[in-house]
């Protein structure tokens, strides 16, 4: 499924959680994976959703370091 993380669309397995999309985003951007635990993840409306939020096709999330 396709998930938009910040301005990047990543493709990730079905059943992925927010942390998986961010990990793919970090790998794609060649950023350290350790940023995952120090950053925060938000939905498209700006609500914090944490690392284990289930995702659906086409969803937008924001990762802030």
């Amino acid at each position, binding site marked *: 499924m396709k998930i938009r993380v910040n301005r990047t669309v990543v493709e990730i397995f079905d*059943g992925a959680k927010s942390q998986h999309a961010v990990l793919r985003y*970090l790998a794609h951007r060649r950023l350290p994976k350790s940023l995952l635990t120090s950053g925060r993840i938000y939905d498209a409306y700006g609500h914090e959703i944490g690392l284990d*939020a289930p995702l659906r096709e086409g969803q937008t999330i924001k990762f802030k370091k």
Partner: protein
Amino acid sequence: MKKLLLTLAAACLLASAAFAEKKEVHILSANDMHAKIENFPQLAAIADSLRALYPSLLIISAGDNRTGEPLNDLYEIPAYPMVVLMNMVGFDATTMGNHEFDSGARGLGELMHMSTFSYICANLMPAPELGVLPRPTQIFDVDGVRVGFIGAVQINERQTPDTHPDNVVGLSFTPVLETIEKYSSIREECDAVVLLTHIGYDDDVALSAEVPWADLIIGGHSHTQLAGGEMHNGVLITQNTNRLQRVTHITLTVEDGRVIDKKAENIEVETYPKKNKVVAEMVRYFSDNPEFQRVLATLTAPMTSYEQLGCMMTDAWRVETGSDIAFTNTGGVRYDQLPAGPFTVSDVLRLDPFGNDTIQLELTGQELKDMLIATTYNDTYGFPKVSGIICNVIFDKKHPEKIKELKITNPDGSKFDLKKTYKVVTNSYTASIADSPRKDQGRALNRTTASIIQEYLEHQGTIDYTGVERTFQSVSKK
């Protein structure tokens, strides 16, 4: 006559005053607790404090009470600790989350039987497999105020909640909106109507537009941290992030048979200064789980390298999922020594402690090769551990972090077909960090990789990985 009229007028005033009396309904709500049993002493203290102020407090969960904590999930009866702790805190009701089905219908039925709180879920059809039936709706009488609840669980394109398909065999579900609308007559019977949903924030907002007759949606599933609650289409929506970091205290003010005010505030659980000592003692009891010392298999010779333990892990995933090939990032193998003797549940959880999900993909040989290389570049621990193939990796002498050549062969030494399609299994971390081109991104099997290793060891009985080696690494001469 004048005296009689005055008496009647006074009686009417009194009656109207009584009729217009405002009453408050207090609800403490949690969602997506995911078996964070360590926070239950604080949750119980919060419930105690609120109950002292509001004796008719309702305590409600919006589902996903279980799954995510081995102390709970690996108990002899999976998720039994959560049921006991929810009973102790005094939960009145929960809806089903998709993870409530993780032990299958029979497992869920057992837990329902042990619960002193009710399960409200209108879109789960009655099924003999459950033994105990969930209620579609429930009406609570809170000091004379009738509060009606309708429950609903998320369903995906297969028309089942997100769990392993085997877990919902024999169960059937109906679409959320049309099911809730079917029970809209509850509005006429109640002073306040609450939708107890496990469908995610986006769908809760969409639902509020379709059911303006509801007063409140207590939501779950998307782990969305709302600041107290949000008003959408006149319906108050609440939800917190997962693992009992926060709960919500909701106050509904009811007058003349309808809700005239509603508000919600978050309460921090993890940092709450008080703990209920009885609940803390029960959590301590569950934390000393003898299940962790259960012997799964016997090691006839010691394991002495990451390679051996990685080979065993990936063998487990390949064999138990019926795949052709399995691999893991080397950082996912957490120790390199295990003496001969018993291989326990605790040993497995130390070896694979991250709660990773199992991901199955259909890959061509070339796509697998690209994925193995991408995993190496994105994991600081080097080339992956594999099962079902043999890998010869040659790193570049000038750029030792770069792979100059990767030769893959079949276990019998024959040529590996790069064009053939293979069923491949890995963990969710590896599937995420391996940013390489492939047609199939795979799908989660909704089973932790650690639970699959446990199964494999139990099926094997005895294991010996002496001399097993499948990845051979060298540096180029030029």
